[in-house]
């Protein structure tokens, strides 16, 4: 079949890009080897966080936050978003100093969303926190959403605007002839002048096919969730010197992450929990919230996600073709960026330019002879 743009990967980046293209009247088809949101997009921690972003990501993250705060106007659904703030706790003076330096750095870049709060303000916001913390870095209107619901909202809105989403359609071969990409799948052949690679952990071979291999590594960050508990905390909690992401979801369950990796059999798409690392995660939670010792963990899982060596995504034109684009490698912090990434790609495709600084995410940064 023929279309204007072929998007490989039906995750959030792919659906967001398709939605933005469709809004401007472009036709596109999404090809997904499984079902939309089967991997990282559907099962991530759902953090909507500007707090503590890499400086290169801040402009995009800030623009994306604006879109999340008005997400209903984009996808006709609130994606179960909440904005009670995200907090990075300082457990000692050293931590506090680290956070102060961070706040100053962000301020110097011209942004005001990250601020230091002292002890008293911290305990007002998080009375349940273990005593003796020093203070925190806070981003007051950060928050979280529910990833699979967001994914579906993006996908449905895109489809309502004419996007076709083909599940269980694995890409076997890509070539270009007569100004068209030809993508061969077990379900048939697809043709379009423009190709977008949003294939997440599976994006590497596609980039390589285009002649621009990337050092992408697939990983599976583990998450665990508790039974429902009475509400006791609003903001999302992290810690200055620990691996932690901790929040009480809308329904009272605790979602605990910490970027600890599961064992991954990438070929089989199987993950195996690393209980030693989850034990560390549990100890981290109990260090900050000792009263949770009897909270029961009911489920653990790990979504398969693309990691780049510098932990920055690739959001880029292809370096080998004027008609191909990439958005992948978000290294476990892409959920928040998804609305703006779709916007950026649609601008690159339709206008050949974007108003946001994407140079740091250029795919050419991995090419030695650059």
């Amino acid at each position, binding site marked *: 079949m023929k279309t204007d743009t072929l998007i490989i990967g039906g995750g959030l980046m792919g659906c967001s890009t398709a939605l933005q293209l469709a809004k401007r009247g472009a036709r596109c088809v999404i090809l997904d080897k499984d079902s939309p949101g089967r991997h990282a997009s*559907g099962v991530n921690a759902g953090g909507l966080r500007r707090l503590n972003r890499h400086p290169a990501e801040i402009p995009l993250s800030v623009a994306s936050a604006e879109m999340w705060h008005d997400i209903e106007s984009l996808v006709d659904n609130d994606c179960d978003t909440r904005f009670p703030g995200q907090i990075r706790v300082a457990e000692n003076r050293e931590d506090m100093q680290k956070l102060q330096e961070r706040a100053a750095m962000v301020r110097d870049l011209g942004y005001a969303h990250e601020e230091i709060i002292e002890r008293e303000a911290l305990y007002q916001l998080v009375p349940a926190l273990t005593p003796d913390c020093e203070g925190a870095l806070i981003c007051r209107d950060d928050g979280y959403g529910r990833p699979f619901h967001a994914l579906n909202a993006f996908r449905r809105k895109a489809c309502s605007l004419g996007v076709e989403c083909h599940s269980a359609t694995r890409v076997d071969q890509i070539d270009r002839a007569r100004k068209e990409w030809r993508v061969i799948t077990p379900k048939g052949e697809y043709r379009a002048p423009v190709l977008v690679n949003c294939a997440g952990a599976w994006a590497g071979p596609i980039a390589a096919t285009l002649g621009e291999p990337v050092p992408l590594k697939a990983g599976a960050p583990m998450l665990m969730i508790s039974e429902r508990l009475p509400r006791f905390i609003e903001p999302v909690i992290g810690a200055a010197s*620990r691996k932690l992401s901790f929040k009480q979801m809308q329904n009272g369950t605790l979602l605990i992450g910490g970027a600890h990796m599961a064992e991954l059999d990438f070929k089989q798409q199987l993950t195996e929990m690393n*209980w*030693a690392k989850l*034990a560390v995660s*549990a100890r*981290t*939670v*109990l260090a900050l919230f000792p009263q*949770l010792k009897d909270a029961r963990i009911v489920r653990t899982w790990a979504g398969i996600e693309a990691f780049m060596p510098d932990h920055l995504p690739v959001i880029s034109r292809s370096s080998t073709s004027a008609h191909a684009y990439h958005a992948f490698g978000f290294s476990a912090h892409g959920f928040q960026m998804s609305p703006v990434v779709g916007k950026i790609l649609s601008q690159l495709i339709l206008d050949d330019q974007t108003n946001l600084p994407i140079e740091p995410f250029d795919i050419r940064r991995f090419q030695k002879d650059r």
Partner: protein
Amino acid sequence: MSTAGPKAHYSLVIIGAGPAGLAAAAAAAGHGLDIALLDEQRAPGGQIYRAIESIPAERARLLGSEYRRGEDLVGAIRNSDVEYFPDTQIWSLNREREIGLVHGRSAAMISADQVVLAGGAIERPVPYPGWTLPGVMNAGAGQILLKAQGIVPANGVVLAGSGALLLLLAWQYMRAGVQIKALLDCTPMHNHLRALPYLPRALLARHYLLKGLQYKLDLKRAGISTLQNVSDMQADGEQRVESVSYRHRGRQHTIKTDLLLTHFGVIPHIQLSQAAGCRHYWDKSQQCWRPQVDEWGNSSVNGILIAGDGVGIGGARTAEHAGRLTALEAVRALGRVSQHERDRLARNDRKWMREEQHIRPFLEAFFHLPGKLLAAPADDTVVCRCEEVTAGAIRKAISEGHDDSNQVKFLTRCGMGPCQGRQCAESVTHIVAGATGKSLPEVGLFRVRPPITPLTLEQLGSLFPDETE
């Protein structure tokens, strides 16, 4: 037996102390192996021989003669060098044969060279209107109370459903003097025809048939009649069950009761074999998922063997034989007997097991549940009781394009509660298959997300104390 927890490693770990696990442990003992028998209950015996060591003689008598068989099985373990750990929940098992457990209150991770899973069966969860009301329970739960504590319904009971246990429990209750208000048999009449071709073979194991007929006769003599071919059964009530209504011979009936016990057969408990990554298949005749095993109980995962009803429903005696066969195979794999010796030792069990199986095709056909009961709960019927997800919500998700079990789970939270989908996985598969026209294997089961049983943060945090970020 042991107040300290299990050691970090065993050559053989057997999970489950019912007939299969007990027989496996006894057969593996005496070969100089380091063996642990782990069981979630406080005492050995499994469901079938529950409380066998502590039961008063009077109560044991009314449970019937078959129950006493558990005494020898348990005795053999008590007099062996097998380390038996009761009160031990298994929350994780992987293909490296690492076993996450909670013994008493403490969590541990141990490993084994060979693992025999003997986790038995669970009662098949079948959602029907009102099944989540207080006062509605599984027949198995009623039997547990009878065996373990001698507790019986004080104000009488309505028994309903389909399956051998229903009849057995009615008979045991009758002997215990319980008022049985009604015995509603939901087995469709045409199952008699369905089962007929298997009758000749079943006659080779006619003691089972005769026992069933005896139970029926005894019930009839006691004035308890069974209503056959009952359909559209449902429990009604505001805060709890107040009455049960059903169709019988073309007419609608209602009967008042504050207790309804239902039973729709049993299915293998496969959460651990699923967690370990063992291959499973759908068995049309048993209407359940079963792990794939060879004639020695070897699963598709190296070093993990499965015996008893956890492989497929075969009953207590089959489980015993299978337990011994898997134990012999594990002992062989561990180099303690030759293949030849294993085959020799297995000869009787293999023969007896074949004889036991004569009755199964007949029973499976006779108690075959109608598709309507499994796949077509009304839209307002709750399917996932942990997260209170209705059949209607599941069908809505399907109609929006989420046409496999795991997508339904993502979207509706069905199966995300503390029971880990044990109660709803089958129903969801049936509903999705029914709505999409896909086959059950295509629809698939929920992916297992350990822990299989909940684990507190303190228990999890106590593991691997030397591990750091």
